[in-house]
């Protein structure tokens, strides 16, 4: 067991090192990503501020509270880009035969799929998110207690898992229907738009969907609502950071199951 663990860790490390080296080969790429991502996230912040300053509030949420939601959304997006970007390109990986390679290795295929690409460029997404988060924290007078810091950590982990699970679920469709990951792009736009604003702006039925079926509400909205003590349709008695983590783990397992089933299908049909 210990030997097994050591083996997997050593391979993970090696993949991470190769990923850094690979990205260092093209340093100029970084400029584009820094410029683009900073524009995107600070621009998005600015759009929210613009709307909020003109309209005052959004379904009872004040500007700084919406910004807090937005920052959680951006950071978790950044974490997905760093650790799980490959879940967006499953269709592409199938077309170029990447999974043949994975299946040729004497290790768990899902593990190899997850660790094979650690995309450090994703920090250009995460950093704006973190900056906006601190900005929001100072606006809402966030209480920096130990418990709250742990809560934020749990929320971010859970949120990242939820997002990844959703990408993996739509990406796995490529195992059944060959395509160039059009749905992943859809998923990205959708997640970005839907997690930047309180989901209480939607009709009740949509809120239910965003809570249980496509649980994006847990990425930013529910945790934030608990920090601010704003009531929602989902009044559960325990801590929302655990709820987010719980949903993240559940959906991640579900998605990895679908992924593995898809990979089995790939083995029987080819690409």
């Amino acid at each position, binding site marked *: 067991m210990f030997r097994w663990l050591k*083996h997997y860790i*050593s*391979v993970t490390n*090696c*993949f991470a*090192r*190769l990923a850094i*080296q*690979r990205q260092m*080969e*093209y340093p100029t790429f970084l400029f584009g990503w820094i410029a683009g991502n900073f524009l995107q996230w600070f621009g998005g912040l600015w759009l929210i501020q613009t709307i909020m300053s003109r309209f005052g509030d959004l379904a009872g949420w004040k500007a700084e509270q919406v910004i807090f939601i937005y920052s959680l959304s951006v950071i978790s997006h950044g974490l997905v880009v760093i650790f799980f970007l490959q879940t967006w390109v499953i269709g592409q990986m199938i077309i*170029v*035969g990447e999974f*043949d*390679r994975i*299946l*040729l*290795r*004497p*290790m*768990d295929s899902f593990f190899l799929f997850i660790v094979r690409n650690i995309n450090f460029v994703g920090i250009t997404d995460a950093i704006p998110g973190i900056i906006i988060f601190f900005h929001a924290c100072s606006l809402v007078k966030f209480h920096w207690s130990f418990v709250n810091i742990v809560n934020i950590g749990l929320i971010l982990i859970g949120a990242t898992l939820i997002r990844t699970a959703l990408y993996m679920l739509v990406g796995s469709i490529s195992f059944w229907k060959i395509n160039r990951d059009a749905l992943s792009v859809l998923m990205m736009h959708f997640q970005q738009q839907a997690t930047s604003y309180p989901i209480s702006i939607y009709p009740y039925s949509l809120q239910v969907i965003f809570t249980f079926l496509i649980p994006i509400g847990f990425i930013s909205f529910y945790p934030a609502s608990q920090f601010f003590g704003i009531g929602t349709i989902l009044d559960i008695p325990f801590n929302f950071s655990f709820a987010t983590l719980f949903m993240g783990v559940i959906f991640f397992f579900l998605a990895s199951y679908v992924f593995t089933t898809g990979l089995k299908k790939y*083995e*029987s*049909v*080819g690409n």
Partner: protein
Amino acid sequence: MIVVKNLSKEFLVIKKSPGFSGALKSIFFPDKKIVHAIDNVSFSINRGEIVGYIGPNGAGKSTTVKILCGILHPTSGTILINGLDPQKKRQEIVRNIGTVFGQRTQLYWDIRLGESFELLRRIYRIDNETYNHNLSVMNEMLQINELIDIPVRQLSLGQRMRGDLVAAFLHSPKIIFLDEPTIGLDIQGKKSIRKFIKNINRLNKATIILTTHDLDDVEELCNRLIIINKGRIVEDGGLKQIINKITPYRLLIVDAEKIPVNFKTENCEIVKSELNRIHLKFDKNKITASQLIAQISLQIKIVDLSVKESDIEDVIENIYGQSV
């Protein structure tokens, strides 16, 4: 040991018809068709053999290789590799398998070659001693050390192929699948790779299955051939044996002062007749070359002559020719 019994693989493909209407039609009424990529194939391969697995494009070679590696599951049939089923025990099987897919590299494109080896060292848990030993043995044959610090994208095709070969052999695999390993290489590159394959087969007692379109590869390397066409095995046996069976004839080329117009011989066929050269095809089981020459020299004055053995190329031509 590889034992394959009644292996079949079917693919479902969707046919596209041309033009606007075709494009529209394939959205709503996709025209599905079953392709029998492999059709009831059986063979067994012993340890240490170098087997050439050849056939025209689309014959089902790559598909067979993928199934044997456990990447693809067969529609029906059984496979045992060292007594194990690759579909059930994939991880165990692939630990002892090395692959080169000539059309695609397994090396990391943007970083130095050595890093790709390091990753493999960890994935296959190769201990340092074995790793260094294997690397130095292969360095002697392929001069890999001079490439090891160069990013793969800057390697020429031949150099990259050397890298891919080393990558496939690092973990001392018992079975190696080489899918077109000499594709796109120049004569020199092909030669050195063939030499390497021969040597490593001798050194490691590794079983090598080679698919290729280069018949020189086959002639130089393989003591056994499996010829597949349209998913079915057409021939399976030694190189000489197959040639003898499929094309048991030789070619006699005779230069003469003048070939009479009504020139005729028995037991052979005139393939080509020029003003003072004639090509004769004869079955070597029916008549020997000297008998034939004696026969001819009665009719014409021979200036020069040569005998050409039929080779694998003629075999292939013969087999593929029938299929078209």
